[in-house]
């Protein structure tokens, strides 16, 4: 019998319905993998009983002949940025250690309502700030992948959704939630040989997700196949009156409309994404991707996104500015960490609490954000960044007059060793260079694995689509997936 943990979400959903196995068998299999993978440090909290409860409910519903939810029988991992009722939610920070929400985020609530079960809360970069998972207070997640040739260096699973990517690649869960502010779904997906989609800004409610940068944060699914992403995204999306930026639009039937036939579609290749000195292996994969899409029937055109080089600095002004304000609520007054030295006044309590509760990267971004919003600097930084952001969005609009989607690399390199870039924040920030522009423009973008590099590590491709056109993004990703035939998986060492 096949190992249940090798199945995709679609396989599990359909096999459970067909009676090939029970939901409980699936949950037990994944619970066992989770329990045996402590070395990856992918989970902050494991909730095997939640997975079993949902599985039992699914089995019971099936036995009773009741209508089954879209994800009945499917256990998933939940990034620990989503508030989960009755289950500790930390955003991988010391600040929120022990915080147990009395409420459920809209997106996680939709997943549970569809019958999914929770395997646990997945580790991440602290407050979703990071590209390697090294900023987590609970220790870095380790990628299940290793370089070939006996190199046993622990590698980064990407970030911030590194717990999600690592767990999926290691078959600890068939799918997981992620959030993406500047690439936090796509870059870890690329690092671990899985796929993940950041939908159009506003598709998924942000209500109940610990905020990093409100104008950029978007939830999305991560899984091993494009189809699985479509299945999850359909459940996670939808208008939420509790989020003023939520899109009041019906959710399309993405899975039912999946098609890798790209006849009549034009694929734009933005020349600015091939800078001087781009890793030749990434460059070569990109060229293969172009051929794959052409093979799927698409016409390939060259396009220009002239403001691309300003995207990263723009992002690193806007995101920290919003974060500095969003994280002001962690003050030790009402919940979470409180440090109250003897004889301390209110200001002392703030200082002590925030000094102890936030990690260095979070502090760095709060300070950057505070600085760029300060009187005298606001116009030079924040106002200017907003203007550039509008230009970047306009670049995409103009490009989409000539094409229907864009193909780019996801990240400028394959995974790197933990510790390798920690000392240089700027080198770390460069990981997001290809993912940040679509975030600034609020566009749907997906990462799909394209192959392995010469060191045996996954490298990926990115599809960027027009606003609200997740279908084309998914379809083009499916075309890549079919042609890349990516079946590699990490050898189990954990």
């Amino acid at each position, binding site marked *: 019998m096949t190992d249940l943990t090798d199945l995709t979400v679609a396989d599990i959903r359909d096999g459970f319905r067909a009676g090939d196995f029970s939901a409980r068998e699936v949950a037990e299999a994944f619970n066992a993998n989770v329990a045996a993978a402590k070395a990856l440090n992918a989970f902050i909290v494991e909730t095997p009983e939640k997975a079993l409860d949902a599985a039992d409910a699914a089995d019971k519903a099936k036995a009773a002949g009741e209508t089954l939810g879209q994800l009945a029988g499917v256990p998933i991992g939940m990034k620990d940025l*989503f508030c989960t009722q009755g289950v500790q939610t930390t*955003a991988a920070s010391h600040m929120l250690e022990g915080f147990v929400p009395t409420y459920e985020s809209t997106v996680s609530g939709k997943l549970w309502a569809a019958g999914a079960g929770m395997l646990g809360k997945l580790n991440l970069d602290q407050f979703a700030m990071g590209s390697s998972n090294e900023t987590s207070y609970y220790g870095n997640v380790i990628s299940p992948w290793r370089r070939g040739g006996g190199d046993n260096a622990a590698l980064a699973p990407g970030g911030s959704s590194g717990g999600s990517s690592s767990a999926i690649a290691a078959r600890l869960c068939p799918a997981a939630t992620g959030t993406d502010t500047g690439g936090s779904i796509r870059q870890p997906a690329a690092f671990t040989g899985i796929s993940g989609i950041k939908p159009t800004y506003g598709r998924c409610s942000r*209500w109940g997700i610990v*905020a990093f940068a409100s*104008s950029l944060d978007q939830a999305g699914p991560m899984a091993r196949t494009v189809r699985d992403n479509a299945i999850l995204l359909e459940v996670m999306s939808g208008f939420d*009156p509790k989020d003023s930026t939520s899109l009041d639009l019906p959710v399309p039937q993405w899975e039912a409309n999946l098609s890798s036939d790209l006849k009549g579609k034009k694929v734009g290749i933005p020349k600015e994404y091939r800078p001087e000195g781009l890793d030749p292996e990434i460059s070569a994969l990109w060229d293969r991707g172009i051929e794959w899409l052409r093979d799927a029937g698409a016409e390939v055109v060259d396009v220009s996104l002239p403001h691309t080089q300003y995207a990263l600095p723009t992002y690193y002004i806007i995101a920290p500015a919003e974060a500095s*304000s969003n994280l*002001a*609520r962690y003050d030790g007054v009402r919940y979470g960490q409180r440090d109250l030295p003897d004889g301390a006044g209110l200001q002392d309590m703030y200082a002590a609490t925030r000094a102890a509760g936030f990690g260095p990267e979070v502090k760095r971004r709060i300070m950057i954000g505070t600085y760029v919003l300060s009187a005298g600097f606001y116009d030079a930084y924040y106002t200017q960044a907003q203007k550039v952001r509008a230009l970047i969005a306009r670049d995409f609009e103009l490009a989409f007059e000539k094409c229907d989607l864009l193909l780019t690399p996801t990240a400028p390199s394959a995974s790197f060793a933990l510790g390798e870039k920690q000392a240089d924040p700027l080198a770390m920030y460069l990981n997001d260079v290809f993912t940040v522009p679509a975030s600034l423009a609020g566009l749907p973008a997906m990462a799909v694995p394209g192959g392995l590099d010469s060191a045996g590590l996954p490298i990926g491709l990115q599809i960027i689509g027009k606003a609200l056109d997740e279908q084309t993004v998914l379809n083009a990703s499916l075309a890549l997936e079919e042609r890349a035939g990516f079946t590699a998986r990490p050898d189990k060492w954990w």
Partner: protein
Amino acid sequence: MTESTYRIQGATGEWEVVIGLEVHAQVTSNAKLFSGAATAFGAEPNTQVSLVDAAMPGMLPVPNRECIRQAVRTGMAIDAQINKWSRFDRKNYFYADLPQGYQISQLYHPIVGEGAIDIVLDEKNPETSTKRIGVERIHVEQDAGKLMHDQHPTSSYVDLNRSGVALMEIVSKPDMRSPAEAGAYLSKLRTILRYVGSCDGNMDQGSMRADVNVSVRRPGEPFGTRTETKNVNSVRFVMAVVEHEASRQVDVLEAGGKVVQETRLYDPDRNETRSMRSKEDAHDYRYFPDPDLLPLELDEAFLKECRQSLPELPDAKRARYVNDLGLSAYNATTLTADADTARWFEALLAEGARIQKKSEGEVAKASANWLLSELYGALNRLGKSLEESPVGPEEGAELLALVADGTISGTIAKQVFEIMLETGARAPAIVEEKGLKQTSDTGAIEAAVAKVLADNADKVAQYKGGKEALFGFFVGQTMKAMQGKANPQVVNEMVKKGLAG
């Protein structure tokens, strides 16, 4: 329009005071500005708090349509520019009563732009004493919670009931020049808010409070440096702050010092203001557009509904009372100064016109006089407000109708009103039961007059000798003999006739 002549006489000459007010008015709404939590005053601490108000992780603000509507209606009531496109900004600072670490406000793009309020400085002569005070803007923002320092020996407690409550900040131009003008502006603003129904105006409950900006200058010179006295919560205190702060500044300047731009606090017990923080310690609020909220766009249908739902406003009402109802300027001003009074008066008027089958104009004067003297006098005595009046507009109209149709005299009406106040009985029943109907029975009156004249033959002689002032004496004696129930006009005629005989 009028110019103020208010001056402070300093040792070195005259000073003019310049005043601007920033009024925070709590929007009347069942729910907070960005959450569904209730807003009841005086509730147990932390019982009116939603997850959003407590700034729990992942919580998001959603604008409350009713709060926006009330701000727009208020703007329309002061003839202000309504900005169809406005935006919310975050004002960032740390304090224990501010759970989010920022207040959602509107700095760059307020919902209401420039408008104006006309104040009247002499209610008896409104035409010659009206002054227009400019309003710079109205924006909506969240209120903060409250710290309680008296609950624990070493800690402060936080009550978040007010956290997130919707406020309108109504910012005047520096157009006021005396304590009286500041007081009149605040009173008039409160009147307008109450008419519109956008704020209950209860200053003692904190629904309305003012930041008072004061500076002084030599008449005609540029503005001086101002101070801002925060959270002043009555009209009287605002006037006291202006007076105190202006003379303090004059003292400073005349002693060769400089006025420091600073925030001050008013201590009503000592009637003085104290420095709270200077410009140097001023926060850098790091305002920026709230990324959790989209810009606010108002469509025509919404604006139309706001406009159509506005009641007749105090200035229009006062003009109508004078021009259409024939009331004196003073009475019209007094009756329209408060929305509840005007509502009461109009109910009295409508009922009076209905019972007496007359126009409202025909019953207006008697109604106004009775309300402002008899009813207000009685309520003052009883220590009750108009809403608590034991006699309602319908009952009042019945009483006035009995006077108007000659059933009872004005004197008897006063007695009947007293009985109404005491027993709650209605005027017609009291008149019937106590037999207070006035008589026009000429025979009975004639007999009474004859008796009075006979009993006072000496005074009759004096009258005939030229002491005509005694006429009133005979009328009074006759009325007394008739127990006040005689029709005064008939009595007059009969006395005249008797004396002529």
